[in-house]
């Protein structure tokens, strides 16, 4: 049976360069880095004091109708980013939704509109929570559950819990844009948004929706989530006065770790048939996806595998799904975070899949520019891959000099013939995600 083809018709990345593909693409091509001292909180007490923040000019209220502004009060930063990214993608795709114009007929029928948004573990805002805890402290300044039950918890807003449920990214987006089709929230750390895009592909293929808002968003830039990144051995040492733009060196033999970037992306993933029927501008094809689980010696996958075998399995599954061979891949976007143990697994996977070509397939490294974007990564990377095949150009690469046999050294942006671009990511926990993004050829 002929599979339903799935394409991308709207891109909504949200990164430290702002919302939308244009500012991100311009920065990547020009080789700029947004890594800088963290503004969101005083990070001087952590291993790294620098990261990449979505710009201060971003205000979620600009991305919802007036009638929905009140709901923005119960949005953690991760949710705000997803909401901003979703409208960005909807606009990029030229869709009319309840979120763009509640009085106009929607482009996609609500019951044919799905939503799969990956998320991280969202940490509670410590300013709000601790203010409440403070009133419940005991004589030794310890937490007193008796006082908390009697009074302290009343200081939290009734909807407090809803700010932090990971499914609220998708729930707000479905409410804003009236997506009544299948909706899911995938929580697999760095693989979250890649796996979400793959699920949208399956949902559309099986006919349960015609289009989906899909991707993920994550902000680790609050003390608790940030500490967890440090405890997961993700952070490079980086003082507040260091040049953060030079710290992250993916695949470099002297790589020292990563810096965190907040962000994510929502993409409009759509059936080719309905996209063509509505005369949509088709940006790229989501031609195949794959997933796998690594064997992790430490069980939890702090080091996500003992080698690249399982990650290679996910990549090969994506190639099979796309119906292409490894030889047809023209470029790849790995997670590439600059943590040596993770880089090594990605490099090994490339060698397993591509053999001798592994050293010549150009890699696109995003972490030196926008930080390691965790659950937001896959959607940002797929948006960049789509732009690569649209522009027939690869972004510049920063910082890396001597590599472990992969093509990741610093270089300016280049015009290149690109038909298929691979995106992949391992994750804390051992889940692997891969996708093939292809140039859209209307005759193909």
């Amino acid at each position: 049976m002929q599979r339903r083809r799935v394409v991308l018709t709207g891109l909504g990345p949200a990164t430290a360069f702002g919302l939308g593909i244009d500012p991100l693409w311009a920065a990547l091509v020009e080789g700029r880095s947004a890594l800088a001292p963290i503004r969101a909180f005083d990070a001087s007490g952590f291993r790294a004091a620098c990261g990449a923040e979505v710009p201060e000019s971003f205000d979620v209220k600009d991305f919802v109708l007036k009638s929905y502004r009140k709901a923005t009060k119960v949005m953690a930063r991760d949710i705000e980013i997803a909401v901003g990214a979703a409208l960005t993608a909807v606009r990029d795709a030229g869709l009319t939704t309840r979120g763009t114009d509640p009085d106009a007929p929607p482009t996609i029928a609500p019951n044919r509109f799905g939503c799969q948004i990956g998320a991280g573990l969202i940490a509670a805002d410590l300013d709000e929570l601790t203010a409440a805890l403070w009133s419940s402290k005991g004589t030794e300044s310890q937490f007193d559950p008796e006082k908390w039950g009697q009074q302290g918890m009343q200081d939290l807003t009734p909807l407090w819990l809803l700010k932090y449920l990971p499914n609220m990214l998708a729930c707000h987006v479905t409410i804003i844009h009236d997506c009544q089709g299948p909706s899911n929230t995938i929580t697999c750390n760095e693989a979250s948004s890649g796996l979400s895009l793959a699920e949208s592909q399956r949902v559309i293929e099986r006919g349960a929706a015609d289009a989906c808002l899909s991707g993920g968003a994550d902000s680790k830039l609050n003390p608790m989530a940030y500490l967890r990144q440090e405890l997961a051995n993700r952070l490079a040492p980086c003082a507040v006065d260091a040049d953060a733009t030079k710290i992250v060196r993916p695949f470099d033999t002297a790589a020292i770790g990563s810096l965190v970037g907040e962000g994510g992306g929502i993409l409009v993933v759509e059936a080719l048939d309905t996209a063509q029927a509505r005369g949509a501008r088709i940006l790229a094809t989501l031609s195949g996806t794959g997933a796998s689980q690594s064997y992790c010696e430490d069980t939890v996958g702090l080091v996500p595998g003992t080698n690249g075998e399982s990650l290679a399995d996910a990549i090969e599954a994506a190639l099979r799904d796309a119906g292409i061979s490894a030889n047809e891949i023209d470029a790849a976007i790995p997670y590439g975070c600059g943590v040596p143990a993770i880089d090594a697994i990605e490099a090994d996977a490339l060698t397993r899949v591509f053999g001798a070509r592994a050293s010549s397939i150009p890699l696109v490294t995003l972490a030196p520019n926008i930080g390691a974007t965790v659950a937001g990564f896959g959607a940002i990377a797929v948006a960049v891959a789509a732009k690569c095949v649209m522009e027939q150009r690869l972004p510049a690469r920063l910082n890396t000099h001597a590599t472990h046999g992969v093509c990741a050294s610093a270089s300016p942006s280049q015009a290149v013939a690109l038909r298929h671009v691979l995106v992949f990511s391992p994750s804390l926990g051992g889940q692997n995600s891969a996708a093939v993004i292809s140039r859209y050829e209307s005759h193909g």
Partner: protein
Amino acid sequence: MSTRPDTHRVVVTGLGWITPLGHSVDAAWQRLLRSESGMGPITRFDARTFPTTFAAEVRDYDVSKFVADAKVHATAGLNSQFALGAASQAWAQSGLANYTALNRKRVGLYLGAGEGVLDFDQYAAANLAGWQDGATKLDAARWADVAHKCLEQMREVEQEPNMPLAHLAREFGIRGPALNCLTACAASTQAIGEAYSLILRGDADVMVSGGTHTMIHVLGVTGFNRLTALSTSKGDPTKASRPFDATRDGFVMGEGSGMVVLERLEHALARGAKPLAEVAGYGSSADAFRITDIQPEGRGGAASMHQALAQAGIDPLARRIDGRAAIDYISAHGTGTKENDSIETRGVKRVFGENAKDIPMSSIKGMMGHLIAAAGAVEFITCILAIRDGMLPPTINYNTPDPELDLDYVPNVARKAKVDICLSNSFGFGGQNDTLVVKRYE
């Protein structure tokens, strides 16, 4: 190019439960059929002054009885521990443990697992250390100083919601597609539905699927108390959860795990496994209404039921040749909140029309409590047991009929019935709805 097998049918070959009513499927099932309740005072922390002081806890649980080498899982949080116990039962029952020809790259995982549990005392200590009288903002540097000393690496890592995946993968050598979804109270129904879809697509031969969760901790109970979603009934906790009763006042938290092994039919038959039931349909929808309220007409739930029934080839308005309604049993989401039970009833009527009054629909949450992300998987297994034994579990504490809720809720005592096709509903906070249809394997 495709090497995918032609797959049309997916069966269940293993079941596992770690629940407040017991640590095995048969023990807990017998207690459900005897209308027993797992509720009691909260023991995990001092909740005496909380609006809600009771829950259904998993008691006397020892994960080391279920795993090959407990050292491998030494840092596992409660979610992963529950998942390991339930999945080990399902894995053992499936016979895959002894199937030497198993291709582990064709075995996947799709869980609906919740986030882990904070080390609350240490967390609170760090937070308080970063605060002072009159402050409006945490002193993050001071906080970091204390948090680095008192928050422990693995305890923090183990809170990631994908950690149960990591533990199960390690225990069973699973190397195929692995995903976790966390759509609140719908998560594990959705996980099973998506696992089923992955097998149908040819992406795996076997999927271990289900859910695991506990929110019986300070911030979990706080969060649901602030939402006024929990029962605050005084007196006997076993009477607190009253799904579909006119006096219902909220849900009672439970915890635990339900796990199943799903398998491509041909794969199961080729290795001589015994199918316990067949997954017949799956539906998923979003209310797209409000984060705090369910769409009042039950539109979202009706949509997911319609999808699942359509995939199963069932016309909900038709009768079967022997005169029975389209299906034999509905495992309700049935939380015992005012809103859910009313709207769920409305949604079921919307889908089944005149048939609705002839389809028994019960909620085991009155006995088990609400296992949040794990609830759907536990209830899906209930449907399979109902088919196996021809018994329907009751809705307990049903004493005062609500005039608007006029379906057959299997009040108070289990019932013998001919059961071939069941539907299981789960509706998540925020409006994500999922439905599974499961039927007797023939």
